[in-house]
């Protein structure tokens, strides 16, 4: 009987050792895993997506905003009747049965089916109470004015890690617009219901900021409408119009055609995403003449009364014979007449007098050959060829806007110096930024350069008013208003020569000439009813200018 006591004692000790070992295993070895398991039962990590900021026009209307949509997902393990579910979803969501069916693999717990579902559609689906179907709230970019100002605004697309803005304002101000994700932890009761007192935020996320544009929605709308009518009327391949306030550099409107719909950008060719006003280069032709002429006047080389002593016929420079655009020549014409007749030989005279060094110096001062730094994504600026590569013929042709490539925004900005007492303002689209706390920060205007004296700018303005009054486009001018402007019929270089049958026609000008409210550049790409700017771009310019002067309440002064 004596063995029973040690036996029971040993058994109990062994039992205790086993229990302690097990406890050691769970409490020490597996402690981390168990606490994580426990946390996952009563704690939930909530990801709060930031709302992307709005882009508002000058009247406060959000031209780009975010709307609540839903992503439909399915838990295949909860589906009771697969065929019925597939049929219902394919008809409701307008997708093929095969694509829904292929996604419903039984080993998956969460299968996204379609994004961007509108709230009404979601309610409709919810009423059907399909087992396994759920929704997740998300934001989708929404453009209330559809494709209006598409090139300027840009678009938003998924990049694998979330959504991201591309081109235009959406691309340039991506960091300000996108906001920051918020993460918070909440404790839940045994049934998974949230306990509000325990919710804590893990980081300082915030919604995206709002941007206020200088863009005038009514003017933008008007310009897009006129551009469409102009392209159809003159049977052009495309066109673009930019309007700026020369005193501030504010872009009032910017339109290009063909365009795309930002909400359905994927349906359009990628080449259409670029804003041609800041990315397309072309030879400006005669619209560059006032800049060259103003440079020469500013340098004191010529005056408006200076007579051209080579204008009686074609001239030969470095073996190249140069002509006027219509082969008409005006002997001893002065500089006012040179601009009025858009006389290429007169401009050769001016350019040769200016010389290569001063030509490069002034063009640089006007911002030609460098970025304007407009706050839009994708701007380019072709640079000049090196000084050593400039020959006399290059100098001569640059005088009348050939052999030099620029973007429309470069020309518009450079020309604005004539309308703003010789000063060039940095062009901008965004005038203010509002952060997530509602604090508004105004962006100050900036003078980028002063290529001319105010006197030269005024003299050149008068020369341009005369060009409008008596030049080729006088038939379409506005009666009663003094408008300064210049036509430009640019040849298109093709395989080493200029295409004789197609041109890029343009008109640039500002109004009223005394105190300009706007400066506008109209460009038509390869119009076919006429290859001349005086017959195509000029009437478009004056048609829009008439509406703008009326819109701004500026009465005729003559």
């Amino acid at each position: 009987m004596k063995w029973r006591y040690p036996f029971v004692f040993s058994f109990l000790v062994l039992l205790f050792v086993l229990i302690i070992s097990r406890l050691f295993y769970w409490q020490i070895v597996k402690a981390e895993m168990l606490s994580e398991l426990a946390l996952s039962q009563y704690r939930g990590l909530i990801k709060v997506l930031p709302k992307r900021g709005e882009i508002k026009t000058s009247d406060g209307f959000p031209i780009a905003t975010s709307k609540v949509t839903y992503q439909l997902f399915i838990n295949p393990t909860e589906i009771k009747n697969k065929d019925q579910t597939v049929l219902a979803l394919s008809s409701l969501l307008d997708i093929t049965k095969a694509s829904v069916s292929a996604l419903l693999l039984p080993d998956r717990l969460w299968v996204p089916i379609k994004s961007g579902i509108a709230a009404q559609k979601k309610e409709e689906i919810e009423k059907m109470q399909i087992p396994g179907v759920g929704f997740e709230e998300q934001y989708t970019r929404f453009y209330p004015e559809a494709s209006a100002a598409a090139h300027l605004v840009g678009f938003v697309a998924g990049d694998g890690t979330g959504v991201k803005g591309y081109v235009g304002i959406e691309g340039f101000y991506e960091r300000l617009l996108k906001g920051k994700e918020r993460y918070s932890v909440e404790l839940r009761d045994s049934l998974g219901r949230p306990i509000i007192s325990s919710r804590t935020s893990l980081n300082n996320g915030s919604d995206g900021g709002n941007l206020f544009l200088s863009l005038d929605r009514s003017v933008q709308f008007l310009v897009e409408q006129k551009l469409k009518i102009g392209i159809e009327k003159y049977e052009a391949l495309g066109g673009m119009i930019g309007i700026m306030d020369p005193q501030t550099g504010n872009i009032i409107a910017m339109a290009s055609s063909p365009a795309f719909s930002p909400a359905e950008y994927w349906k359009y060719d990628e080449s259409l995403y670029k804003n041609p006003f800041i990315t397309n280069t072309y030879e400006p032709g005669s619209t560059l003449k006032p800049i060259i002429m103003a440079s020469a006047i500013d340098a004191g080389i010529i005056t408006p009364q200076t007579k051209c002593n080579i204008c009686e016929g074609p001239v030969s420079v470095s073996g190249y014979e140069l002509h006027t655009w219509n082969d008409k020549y005006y002997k001893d014409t002065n500089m006012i007449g040179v601009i009025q007749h858009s006389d290429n030989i007169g401009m050769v005279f001016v350019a040769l007098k200016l010389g290569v060094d001063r030509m490069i110096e002034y063009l640089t001062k006007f911002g030609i050959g460098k970025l304007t730094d407009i706050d839009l994504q994708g701007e380019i600026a072709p640079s000049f060829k090196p000084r050593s590569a400039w020959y006399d013929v290059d100098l001569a042709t640059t005088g009348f806007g050939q052999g030099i490539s620029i973007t429309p925004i470069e020309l518009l900005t450079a020309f604005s110096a004539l309308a703003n007492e010789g000063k060039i303002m940095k062009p901008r689209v965004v005038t203010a930024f509002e952060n997530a706390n509602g604090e508004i920060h105004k962006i100050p205007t900036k003078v980028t350069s002063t290529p001319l004296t105010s006197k030269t700018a005024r003299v050149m303005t008068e020369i341009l008013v005369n060009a409008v009054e008596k030049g080729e486009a006088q038939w379409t001018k506005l009666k009663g208003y003094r408008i300064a402007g210049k036509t430009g019929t640019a040849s298109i270089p093709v395989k080493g020569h200029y295409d004789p049958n197609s041109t890029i026609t343009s008109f640039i000008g500002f109004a009223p000439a005394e105190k300009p409210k706007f400066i506008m550049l109209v460009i038509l790409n390869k119009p076919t009813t006429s290859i001349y700017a005086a017959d195509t771009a000029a009437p478009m310019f004056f048609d829009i200018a008439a509406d703008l002067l009326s819109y701004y309440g500026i009465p005729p002064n003559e």
Partner: protein
Amino acid sequence: MKKAYILVIILLGLVFSLAVGRSILQNMLSTSGIFIGKAEKEINFYKTQNAILSEELLIASALTNIIEKAHKSGFVSGDALMVIKTSRPLAVRP
């Protein structure tokens, strides 16, 4: 001896009442989740409705829509409508 007995009773009573108080408080906190859940659901509902109404308001006040309505009512010509909404232009990807 009697004092010690009373002290023990008081301490036991205190422990008991604190335990009960704690249970009531925990219970209140945990069950408040039901109300919170309901309230959050209601807030989300109104948020959604608000978002839908905002969207409708923006569409209604968009110049694109106004000009379309004006055209239907015979106030402006069809040429005035130029934005891409549903139909695709020539430049669309094939």
